[in-house]
């Protein structure tokens, strides 16, 4: 049973890796066109308006996602399937007297002056000049995020329910698996970083943060629908989380925290003046480092695995497949570790920043 399951998994994995590779619209069953590794990888790690599942006979099979636009004429919604998998600005969707095109996974207003059947105009540097509506579509990543939310709520509400079944409050069932993780955040992150007096107030935030990042990291590693979205490797996602940490840190900070930034006690006045701008910049650098660390680590993981798979196509030899498969499995295993560590690092650093903001110094 187990062997059969793992065999199915292997086949599915293989199929979907290759599916992802053919997902690049430029190389769609076009034998003469050179395989563009860069484009394939970028296409994978960036957001998309439809969830590509696989290609069958050069025909893309994808899960259509709703496109939600705030335009000059108000709210516009339609399904991404109306673009017919077109990502080069050739297909127009008309709503409320406006025409929209999708070009490189971005929604623009169509321009009539376009050429080669495209409704796109460029400036001299090749940048798109078309105007953009405010795009709040449920993209592949938002879709993936919703799935992760449903999973998290299911897992942890179920965990909470197991405690009502137990007699002495010991974990039962699912709680046996999730409680050690929760206790890990409590004992290894919140308690040492924030301190016994205040840690309980920040536990819900730290737990939500840790599991939200971790589950999205792990979902990004699973190479088939409805997973594989590089959400936690997207700068917008890490930006929001870092901003939340920044806001909590800044809002809860006590007098000591600001004093240590602008007028460091116990130093001569010239040093105080010298340190103040550095410490002030530190307020912003801390969350920025959080944002970039998670984004870069997770994106890099995806890029490495995809690059290793791409070796087969770069060298155009099936003989290289075992090598590239071996390395990508190896890197995938490392990634399983890395994604957990990155979620932990983000959480422990957030806890540390909050802890330093509410720390009471004794001078």
């Amino acid at each position, binding site marked *: 049973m187990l062997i059969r399951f793992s065999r199915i998994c292997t086949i599915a994995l293989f199929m979907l890796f290759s599916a992802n590779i053919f997902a690049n619209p430029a190389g769609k069953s076009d034998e003469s066109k050179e395989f563009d590794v860069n484009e394939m990888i970028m296409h994978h790690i960036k957001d998309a308006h439809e969830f590509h599942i696989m290609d069958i006979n050069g025909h893309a099979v994808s899960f259509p996602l709703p496109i939600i636009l705030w335009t000059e004429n108000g709210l516009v919604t339609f399904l991404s399937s109306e673009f017919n998998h077109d990502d080069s600005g050739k297909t127009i969707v008309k709503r409320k007297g406006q025409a929209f095109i999708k070009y490189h996974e971005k929604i623009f207003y169509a321009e009539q002056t376009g050429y080669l059947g495209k409704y796109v105009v460029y400036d001299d540097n090749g940048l798109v000049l078309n105007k953009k509506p405010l795009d709040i579509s449920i993209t592949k990543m938002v879709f993936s995020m919703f799935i992760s939310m449903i999973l998290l709520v299911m897992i942890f509400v179920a965990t909470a329910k197991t405690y009502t079944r137990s007699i002495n409050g010991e974990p039962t069932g699912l709680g046996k698996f999730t*409680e050690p993780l929760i206790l890990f955040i409590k004992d290894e992150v919140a308690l040492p970083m924030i301190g016994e007096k205040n840690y309980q107030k920040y536990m819900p935030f730290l737990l939500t943060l840790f599991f939200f990042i971790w589950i999205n990291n792990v979902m990004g590693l699973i190479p088939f629908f409805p997973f594989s979205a590089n959400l936690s490797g997207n*700068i917008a996602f890490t930006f929001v989380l870092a901003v939340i940490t920044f806001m909590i840190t800044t809002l809860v900070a006590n007098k000591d925290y600001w004093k240590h930034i602008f007028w460091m006690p116990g130093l001569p006045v010239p040093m105080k003046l010298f340190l103040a701008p550095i410490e002030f910049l530190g307020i912003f650098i801390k969350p920025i480092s959080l944002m970039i660390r998670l*984004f870069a680590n997770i994106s890099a993981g995806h890029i490495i695995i995809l690059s290793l798979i791409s070796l087969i196509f770069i060298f155009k030899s099936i003989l290289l497949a075992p090598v590239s498969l071996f390395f990508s499995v190896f890197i995938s295993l490392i990634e399983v570790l890395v994604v957990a560590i990155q979620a932990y690092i983000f959480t422990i650093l957030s806890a540390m920043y909050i802890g330093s903001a509410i720390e009471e110094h004794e001078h």
Partner: protein
Amino acid sequence: MDLVTPDIGLIFWTTISFAILYFILAKFAWKPILGAVTDREKSIKDALSAAEKAKEEMANLKADNEKILNEAKLQRESLLKEAREIKSKIIADAESEATEKANKLVESAKIAIENEKSAAMKELQNTVVDLSLNIAEKLLSKELDNKEKQVQNIQDILDKTKLN
């Protein structure tokens, strides 16, 4: 550059998602879970402190027992000592009493002997007088003719028989 430009739509959805997730999980998951964990930790702590208290009480009890035992030991010791003293006193008393009694007995015996002796002496004197008279009678009856010799004899006898 496209890669490091945050997308407004995703920022919007991430913010909303995280807020919703935070409130749902905080209310329906973290609160009951952390509550259960805290309760359990508290009950474990309580149980441990109760055990510690019981241990302390046990130790106190043991110390008390030891104290009582020691006191009993001391009491026994003193009782034994007293008994020994009483014993030796009784023995000493008895000894002295016995000696006294013996002495008294000896004394009275001596007196009795003395009395007996003097009585015997008196009797002996009387007997001697009687005997002497008898002898004298016999001698007188036998040798009355030889008066001189008789007297001589009596004199001799009397000389020899010195009364004390």
